[in-house]
């Protein structure tokens, strides 16, 4: 077939796709989350995970952490479009590989098994600060904090030890050292 030379935008070659963590400081008001999420869905951007909570009661500010993927051009657009929203105060943009940033997500894992399996399960996640939040002789609820892919692999590894349910937050982010984000 003849190569299309359309006068219209044909999907051109995609650039390299990176994972970014976008941090958005917003006024904690009605429908602000829907504005942010609606912008992502409306413009066809991707959301891998999302975490949101109020961080400043006095100034009524919430912090939204979104893990997204896209070409450099798309990521730039995401940041600029977010900045246009009226309740948005500032937007941080970090590459996942960025060494200056800490990313963590938390997971609650329910194991239903005998105590030897529970012990093995606990052992399998000992690198990720496991905390036993609840224990009976047939079950345990373990809390871990780790990177997304680490939680992925833990949940996979725990299947044989009786993992029946996993609940996880999206990633949250913080800069290392004394530096703060402006």
């Amino acid at each position: 077939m003849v190569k299309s030379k359309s006068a219209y935008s044909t999907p051109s070659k995609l650039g390299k796709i990176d994972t970014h963590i976008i941090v958005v400081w917003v006024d904690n008001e009605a429908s602000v989350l829907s504005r942010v999420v609606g912008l992502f869905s409306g413009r066809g951007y991707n959301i891998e995970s999302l975490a949101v909570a109020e961080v400043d009661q006095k100034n009524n500010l919430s912090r939204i952490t979104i893990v997204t993927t896209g070409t450099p051009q798309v990521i730039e657009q995401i940041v600029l479009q977010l900045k246009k929203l009226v309740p948005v105060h500032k937007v941080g943009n970090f590459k996942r590989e960025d060494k200056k940033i800490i990313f963590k997500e938390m997971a609650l894992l329910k194991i239903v098994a005998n105590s030897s399996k529970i012990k093995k399960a606990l052992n399998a996640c000992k690198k990720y600060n496991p905390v036993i939040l609840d224990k009976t002789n047939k079950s345990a609820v373990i809390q871990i904090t780790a990177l997304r892919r680490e939680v992925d692999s833990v949940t996979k590894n725990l299947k044989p030890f009786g993992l029946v349910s996993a609940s996880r937050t999206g990633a949250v982010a913080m800069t290392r050292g004394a530096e703060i984000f402006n």
Partner: protein
Amino acid sequence: MPKLFSGAEIVFKCLEDQKVEHIFGYPGGAVLPIYDELKNHPTIKHILVRHEQGAGHAAEGYARSTGKPGVVLVTSGPGATNVVTALTDAYMDSVPLVCISGQVPTHLIGTDAFQECDTTGITRPCTKHNWLVKDINDLPRIMHEAFEVATTGRPGPVLVDIPKDIQFAKAKYFKPKKEKKLNGKVLNKFNQKEIDQLVDLMKKASKPVFYTGGGVINSGPKASELLRELVALTGFPITSTLQGLGAYPGDDNQFLGMLGMHGTYEANNAMHDCDLLINIGARFDDRITGKIDEFSPKSKKVHIDIDPSSINKIVKVDLAIVGDVSDVIKSTTKTLKKKNLNLEKSNKQKISKWWQQIQKWRTKQSLNFINSDKIIKPQHAVQRLYELTKNQDTYITTEVGQHQMWAAQHYKFNKPNRWMTSGGLGTMGYGLPAAIGVQVAHPKKLVVDIAGEASILMTMQEISTAVQYNLPVKIFILNNQYMGMVRQWQELLHEKNYSESYSEALPDFVKLAEAYGCVGIRAEKPDELDEKIEEMISIDRPVIFDCHVDQAENCYPMIPSGKPHNQMLLGPKDQEENRITGKGKSLV
């Protein structure tokens, strides 16, 4: 104790403080308290439309022709959903609108009450911002903020949804505060270094071109004056987008005409071959760029825009200047004058070859058409309309389709704010209500809606509004009985399978005009055209002009799908050699 005002009173006090003179609206259950209050505010005139979409477009026409925000007042539920098209249209074309909608009382929200809908949810993606007022004490602040958001930075529509109980509730009123900053949303902080870089690029360029858009219009009439000065000073050629027409005189020699899909041969070729492209207030829309990979491949690109998210969105640029167009142009001109007094002359020598090339392209006369003495050619009709109205200050609106492109090609605008058309969203039915809005703002001026017979039927009911308020708008219908642009694409891309693009049962527009209480005129032969146009202009009442034109006429030149930007389709003769092939067919 300070005086307390009801929500409805606060709405009007805000409108008064914002110097609103006209609102376009339609009453209903959930806005009755506001309508009840209307009688106490004689400085604000309400224009009753026939459909809420008409209110929105009328407010758009009002805003585009005055530079002031248009104000819309609608009820909850269907009132709000009907205005969504107009809000989206305004959002795409950066028109400042403030839409006030009624909502069911707060205690009924979420219960599927009568005429309830999630108005803020529905309009969230088609407004710059919207508010649901849940506390009467927030109302004055929100109303003032609404005007602030709509009119600052890149303008756009906003919506304030006011539940009925809030309209009755009482609170203190306060006047707008100036210091309120919208989280730093207003960006106009370019620096001299950027201007110096621009001037440097301009000095080096041997094939420069200005590409200007609606941003120049939105920046105010001053921006157009400054643009004219800059263009004269540099000697560079200039082309404009659909929305930018009028910012630079259409009959000036340095003006290459409109660019893009139905732009002129010289404008598109200049864009393709230039070595410096200076975008002022345009957004690299896909109807302009064509295929991105082959868009202006040899040029350095400069983008001047107030909206940072417009920059690098579609086309990667070498120099971005974020700021208000008039401020940027002013600084540029100042720097040019300061740096090199002889630039005008030296530039002209440097780019003389470029002008020779442009002259060569011009000889193609790409807007030409084969005229007829038996049947009215639509282009001829627009040309005659132009010739017969150019001596007075005329405002033109359009619907969407072939007639819109012919109007853009053949009607030459000399002033900004004289051209109102739906570019981004491409809303058929925009022109008539927009013309009404324009006429409300400029009661003594000639306002003509260049229309198609299919488009006009979408908002035909608004002619009744024009009659009610004695607004002498002229509806100039280029009637070819087809959805012309659809038919043209079907002819070029779908083997002339004119699927559903022919209107079998059209009304008799002359009788229709009489039924509405205005004047109908019909023209069928070229030799009666001038006389009838003159008759139309002389009538001080709304007129529907039914101009029967060639049904088979296509809009050229055209960049067809599947072809690169610099290979335009010029006319019927060119078509055989340039058939659209392969994948191009599937692209809209």
